């Protein structure tokens, strides 16, 4: 029983930890793309990777200040969004999806390749670039803090605080934007692109703006992840993360301001609880070793997410908070 409580406490930490922030920011970006504008961006993790490596390369390799690194990451994300959007935003939705997933995988392969090692550190990645940021913490970054039975280091707490601040800021931004005339045009594009075009709006430009905005939010997610882990490794930015963020968004409810945030917290909680719980059950022999060994638990989580994503889409596409009429399910 105490193990179950421990699992609950560890999962509770995941509820507020940097990974929930990471997925929340990815999902807020995807919400701008998919939820509001109807763009199928399956390469969100590439934006996060550029954000994380923007800081890592600027600080570790070029010796620039931390905040310049943040700007580099944002600029890289903007450039990527323009590059991806230019050829595909005039085409049907699934073309963007294929190109973005291809770009994300291609960029990861490029970053981990031998020839990129002098810049990105190759498969081993880069580290030691977050000291400037961690030392800004108003408390001792190395000290331990007990909060509701979970243990946090000062640095973790500082990253989490700033991360949730970012999530709040971007949620407010999305909320205000979607109430503005710009937001109404973007949502109209999701519903009927031709009608918007007939009203004289430049659909292509609006889609591009949405793609850039969502991509930059995703880049901030990557920065939080890189700063929190203190390292940037290309293989951390696997395509599966994009789909985890999609699962979080759809779980919470697409086209809702708080949908991606609540969805990410819940997803991380479920994943961590399943992980710790399954390990405890296996260690205690309740689940026989022959059926499932503890090394398989990490994969089981992805199996569950895949299954959950399918079931959600089929039976409750609007998620917890969403409105079924607002969820973009038909390609134009």
């Amino acid at each position, binding site marked *: 029983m105490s193990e179950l409580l421990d699992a609950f406490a560890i999962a509770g930490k995941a509820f507020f930890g940097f990974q929930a922030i990471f997925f929340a920011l990815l999902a807020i970006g995807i919400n701008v793309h998919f939820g509001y504008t109807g763009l199928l961006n399956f390469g969100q993790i590439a934006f996060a990777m550029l954000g994380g490596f923007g800081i890592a390369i600027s600080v570790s390799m070029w010796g620039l200040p931390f905040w310049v690194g943040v700007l580099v990451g944002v600029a890289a994300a903007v450039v990527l969004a323009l590059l*991806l959007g230019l050829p595909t935003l005039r085409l049907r939705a699934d073309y963007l999806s*294929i190109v973005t997933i*291809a770009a994300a995988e291609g960029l990861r392969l490029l970053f981990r*390749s031998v020839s990129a090692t002098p810049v990105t550190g190759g498969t081993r990645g880069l580290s030691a670039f977050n000291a400037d940021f961690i030392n800004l913490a108003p408390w001792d970054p190395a000290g331990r803090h007990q909060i509701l039975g979970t243990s946090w280091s000062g640095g973790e707490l500082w990253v989490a605080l700033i991360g949730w601040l970012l999530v709040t800021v971007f949620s407010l931004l999305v909320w205000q934007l979607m109430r503005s005339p710009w937001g109404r045009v973007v949502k109209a594009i999701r519903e009927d692109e031709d009608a918007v075009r007939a009203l004289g709006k430049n659909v292509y430009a609006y889609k591009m703006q949405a793609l850039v905005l969502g991509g930059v939010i995703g880049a901030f997610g990557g920065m939080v992840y890189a700063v929190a882990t203190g390292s940037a490794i290309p293989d951390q930015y696997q395509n599966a993360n994009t789909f985890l963020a999609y699962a979080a968004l759809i779980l919470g409810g697409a086209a809702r301001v708080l949908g991606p945030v609540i969805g990410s917290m819940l997803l991380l909680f479920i994943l961590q609880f399943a992980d710790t719980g399954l390990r405890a059950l296996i260690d205690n022999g309740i689940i026989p070793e022959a059926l499932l060994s503890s090394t398989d638990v990490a994969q089981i989580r*992805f199996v569950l997410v895949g299954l959950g994503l399918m079931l959600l889409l089929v039976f409750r596409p609007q998620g917890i908070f969403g409105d079924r009429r607002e969820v973009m399910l038909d390609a*134009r």
Partner: protein
Amino acid sequence: MGTSARRRPSRWLPGRRPLVLTLLLAAFTMALAMLMPGVASAANEAVTGTLQTSRSGPIAGVPVTVETAAGDPVDTAETDEDGRFSVPVPGPGEYEVTIDPEALPDGVELGERGESLTVTVGPNRAQPVLFGLADGTSNAGGGSVEAVQLLVDGIRFGLLIAVCAVGLSLIYGTTGLTNFAHGELVTIGAVVAWYINVQGGIPLIPATIIAMIVGAAVGALNELAIWRPLRRRGTGLVAALVVSIGLSMLLRYLVQIVYGGFSSPYADFQTQRTIDYGVFTMTNRSLASIVISVVVLVLVALMLQRTAIGKAMRAVADNRDLAASSGIDVNRVILVVWMMGGALATLGGVLLGLSDQVQWDMGFRLLLLMFAGVTLGGLGTAYGALVGSLIVGVFVQMSTLVIPSDVKYVGGLLLLIVILVLRPQGILGSRARIG
């Protein structure tokens, strides 16, 4: 058949769900899934490997010594006439494998990795050890010879992608579904063939045929258990696309749990010496891969052109409502497309496993190149998939002339983006399809 004319005009046509068949197939697949770990755990841990170079062929009679990480001797063995060795070890853990460089024939030298290698053996795994022997051929040949070599290799790879991608393109053409789980059909096919071949001890060719039947069943199960019911519910295409991503994750990580994160070769055709054709060299298994791909693709083309079901497929892909109203049973055609796609993906998976070994995410990595090929040729057209895949395969291999080989896939993905700028409908596609 006549009833289909009265169905409402929709991209996703309703149809009757043969629930019994679905359950039977599900039960069969479950049984198979339960069987596999059982088969896997019957084997014991070992280190295996093959000593060969392209010029000398397999090297026999080389003593191989295996020690534990602490230096305790485990066993010694000699390579057989196929150059192979296999030394059983007491359990999972780290082992040091040493070969005797004195016993190597003239002209063959140790590679950069030296005479001793430390390997980690997983539970129930025959861990392959790669010594990387050198015989001076790796850097031989001028630029043009190398280009021809890469061209031939690119044609092999492109044909392989085409075999996998024909199903993807036909499924897109007939149902409108962008199936992100198609790569898993490739992986499942290759892994099923691996279990039948390596664990079951059946030669690879019959094993492949059995695996293709299983692959067709998996394809049919996809259609009957998921996509046909979803079409009946009127699920939108974007929702279906995200469902296919969920399915892809589900299957991919299930394969990793059942099969493991290792890469293993098939038991047959591993020890082949390359044959010199003048301007290029090739192993017989690469040649066979090309011949099999060409024959299969010609058969597919003949089927599409000459047979009734092939004509029906093209009709459904061209205009589904018109096909339905002229008496074609659209759901039956789609089922056949899925079964064919599953069988072809399996064959492609086995061919890929022959050249690159079997891995849990091999299909997913190939998927993006399949998409590149299919988009390049024109989404939804069977012949477009063929032409596009061939171009992607050749481009990916030839690009290693100028870029390092570990980023060669990036070149293929870049080609996809460039093509979409220049000619979004693809080489053989029609403008109406791209929106």
